[in-house]
């Protein structure tokens, strides 16, 4: 009982962020994974105004309370207004882009050094007050009062006002509500503005209670997501109760567990993972898009379209012909030799890191690009590969090659387990399970010193012949990338590739043709996981040591943003993305202007947002433009009349009653 009050404080803020997610999902159909980022952006702005710019508290609070809705409106107008009828996966990718870009954008725009803790909205916030039998700081009290007022106001507004009636109508039957004259577009904009206000307010209230770190706020998004899921993305009251319960449970366990124990340091932060995973698996959540709500029995058959937009509308780069393979391999060989011998130690090491990331990013190409499953926890899987390979090679003395093989098998097993669990759900459920897995790794598994010692996992020195370490890393990475690229290309052109493409394009039709879609997805995901494990081991070899920070949840999301931006459907995209991911920060490190180090992350995040609006990917867009330039006009290929059917979307034709 002693620790209930601190739990209520943090639980109320979980509830506030969860309520924001619920509101956005109910009105727009978007699962907003960027609530933590929006809260962070506002908290960071508040910190900057008060601590750096020396503003008085009151005007800083007012400005930040205005900033939240402005963030919300800009996000809606710039992104979600254009993709409101798109697939949930597209929208999820866009929110990941925002989650990656917004914190980095704030840090880039308002550079500050050594940010640890922000002041709160009340003066002398650390002062302790005694209320009844509880002790509370002024900041904690402000957080509770603020959360209660905001949540209570929100619930009252939804239940008692005409606006709330419109909201409930849209939540229940969006098409019917639109038909009854409710302006759903305006309501959508309003929901983003309101969400921005709530998350912004939560950010300011949280700022004195949490370390001001984007990774911590991203983890907060998962906690908020889990409590929103408890309320089935509909009930603000249940969401609030779930938030409070999660906060109190965390606080009680932390309070009674021995200081510094695994339970206190690992289990408590991982509680949102257990809640999220449990709710997803027990409830077998099927998150239909808002447009599908209420469509009755056709929803199941139509659920095959989930994930199509970002996954199947991405036109692939044309498959390489055999002759071009030779050219590509020769070009790769020349590039490898140039990278090994023509640069100084700094750039050689950077390129070695880039190739290690390229191999890691191939796992996205396989899982997401070809397999059609969106994995938000690839960093966790890569970390397992890195840890297993490093420890076996260093401590068990197995030698790097055998250690890497075992690491790859472990990562594949991890993929099988995660895939078997995740594929019980729909594609969004799968993405959320992998997100929960990444959180589990970051907050629990990687805190176990039996798994990762405090000093990290060391790797033995790796050298081939007379080459130095970085040259050896480049050579090893290049060979492995080439082998994997050839295998991936073979897979893609084989009958398995056709089946994979069919599943990605239309899983319902593929299954009705006799494909075991779930088994196929598990297999492809396991393959992708194996490659992620290999990539993790390569990262370890290149760095010589890996620690938890190398594979944080936010890092994995940035990886995804980079690959999606460049192109998730070709190994060329993985290669360019990997090199860019390593080279861009290294290049900006050479620029001495403070704060420029965040620019690549901002660009990667904006790229992921852009990909949601135009899902072809940068490389495919460039390829398409080049092909247009060099292509000659071709005669029409169809003898049959081209009327009536497919113009923009050839896969869904016909119509008729959906109720038959």
């Amino acid at each position, binding site marked *: 009982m002693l620790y209930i009050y601190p739990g209520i404080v943090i639980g109320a803020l979980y509830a506030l962020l969860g309520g924001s997610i619920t509101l956005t999902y109910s009105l727009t159909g978007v699962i907003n994974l960027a609530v933590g980022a929006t809260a962070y952006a506002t908290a960071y702005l508040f910190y900057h105004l008060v601590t750096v710019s020396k503003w008085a508290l009151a005007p800083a609070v007012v400005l930040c309370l205005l900033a939240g809705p402005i963030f919300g409106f800009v996000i809606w107008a710039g992104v979600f207004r254009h993709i409101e009828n798109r697939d949930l996966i597209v929208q999820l990718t866009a929110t990941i882009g925002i989650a990656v870009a917004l914190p980095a954008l704030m840090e880039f725009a308002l550079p500050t050094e050594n940010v640890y803790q922000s002041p709160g909205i009340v003066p002398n916030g650390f002062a302790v007050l005694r209320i009844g039998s509880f002790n509370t700081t002024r900041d904690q009290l402000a957080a509770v009062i603020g959360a209660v007022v905001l949540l209570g106001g929100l619930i009252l507004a939804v239940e008692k006002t005409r606006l709330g009636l419109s909201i409930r109508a849209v939540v229940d039957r969006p098409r019917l509500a639109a038909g009854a004259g409710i302006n759903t577009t305006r309501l959508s904009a309003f929901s983003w503005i309101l969400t921005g206000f709530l998350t912004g307010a939560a950010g300011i209230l949280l700022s004195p209670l949490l370390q001001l770190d984007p990774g911590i706020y991203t983890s907060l998004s998962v906690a908020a997501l889990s409590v929103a899921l408890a309320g089935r993305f509909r009930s603000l009251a249940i969401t609030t109760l779930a938030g409070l319960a999660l906060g109190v449970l965390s606080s009680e366990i932390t309070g009674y567990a021995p200081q510094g124990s695994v339970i206190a340091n690992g289990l408590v932060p991982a509680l949102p993972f257990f809640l999220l995973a449990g709710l997803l698996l027990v409830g077998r959540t099927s998150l239909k898009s808002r447009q599908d709500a209420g469509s*009755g*029995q*056709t929803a*199941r*058959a139509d659920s*095959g379209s989930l994930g*199509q937009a970002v996954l*199947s*509308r991405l*036109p*692939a780069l044309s498959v390489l012909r055999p002759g071009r393979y030779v050219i590509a391999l020769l070009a790769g060989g020349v590039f490898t030799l140039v990278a090994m011998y023509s640069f100084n130690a700094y750039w050689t090491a950077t390129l070695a890191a880039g190739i290690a990331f390229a191999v890691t990013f191939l796992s996205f190409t396989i899982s997401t690009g070809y397999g059609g499953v969106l994995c938000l926890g690839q960093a966790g899987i890569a970390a397992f590969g890195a840890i297993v390979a490093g420890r076996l090679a260093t401590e068990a003395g197995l030698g790097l090659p055998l250690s890497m093989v075992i690491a790859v098998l472990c990562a594949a097993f991890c993929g099988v387990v995660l895939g078997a669990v995740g594929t019980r759900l729909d594609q969004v459920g799968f993405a959320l399970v992998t997100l929960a897995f990444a959180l589990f790794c970051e907050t629990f598994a990687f805190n176990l010193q039996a798994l990762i010692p405090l000093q990290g996992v060391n790797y033995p020195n790796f050298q081939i012949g007379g080459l130095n370490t970085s040259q050896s890393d480049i050579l090893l990475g290049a060979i492995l990338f080439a082998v994997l690229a050839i295998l991936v290309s073979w897979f893609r052109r084989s*009958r*398995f590739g*056709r*089946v994979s*493409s*069919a599943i990605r*394009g*239309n899983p*319902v*039709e593929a*299954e*009705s*043709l*006799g*494909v*075991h*879609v779930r088994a196929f997805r598990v297999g492809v995901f396991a393959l992708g996981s194996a490659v992620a494990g290999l990539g993790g081991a390569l990262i370890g070899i290149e760095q010589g040591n890996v620690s938890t920070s190398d594979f944080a949840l936010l890092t994995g999301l940035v990886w995804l943003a980079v690959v999606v931006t460049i192109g998730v459907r070709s190994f060329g995209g993985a290669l360019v993305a990997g090199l860019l991911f390593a080279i861009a920060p290294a290049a900006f490190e050479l620029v001495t202007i403070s704060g420029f180090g965040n620019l690549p992350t901002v660009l990667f995040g904006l790229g992921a947002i852009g990909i949601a609006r135009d899902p072809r990917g940068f490389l495919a867009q460039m390829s398409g433009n080049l092909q247009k330039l060099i292509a000659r006009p071709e005669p*029409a*290929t*169809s*003898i*049959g*009349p*081209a*009327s*009536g*059917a*497919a*113009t923009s*979307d*050839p*896969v*869904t*034709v*016909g*119509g*008729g*009653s*959906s*109720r*038959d």
Partner: protein
Amino acid sequence: MTSATAAVSQSTEETLRLDGITVRFGGLTALSDVSLAAAAGEFVGLIGPNGSGKTTMLNVITGLVRASSGTLSICSAPCGRVSVHRRARLGLARTFQRAMLFPEMTVGEHLALARDIPNLWGRRPSAAAGRGGHTADDELTAFVAAEPWGLRPGDRLSGLSLGGLRIVELAMALASQPKVLLLDEPLSGLDQAERISFGDALLDVQRRLGVTVILIEHDVESVLRLAQRLVVLDFGVKIADGPAAEIIKDPRVRDAYFGGDEQ
């Protein structure tokens, strides 16, 4: 060609059987105690007004919707909890109300995909060994190349007419040489000439493969031309089942389907 004159090979072997199928969505009963049996080579028209449960019935047979109660067997194999892909391997194929194809693939790739799936792990796809000395691949290619579709393997979906898309979907369904073929409004959106051509193609493959066909179609004229037997659903209840020519004259059917004042 009419159903009466078509030389359809029909045996007494039962390929599809539904007994007392009931489907509920929350408070709505979409199908109520519906039973149906169809023999090999039989062509059954499934008709009824909008919302009568026709597509739900096909979804139950396919496994996309689970029945609240009742039993189902395909080629004598009980299928109550059998997954969608396993039903396909038992000999079930279907097309959808909205033709479901794969946007990235050409016509030829669609046919190759359908050919590959039955024996994905084998060295040579089993469906390739067709009847009459031709490969199934050749037959399917010829099937979609026939007039008026005239499709070529390299054609992309974006250039196809609605009829072209539907014939590709039908060809894919036929690639596995199914025992039971479910067709959900395959003629909707086609003009009169296309309807006739599509119907002729359907009758031809049904005769040659001896497949059981369950056809949902709103165009009564087409249904009467193709189906030997009609099953009529209304508000999820089967109200008639029998020879097409007789059923269409049934007053209850006319009342449910045409509102009672259609002559």
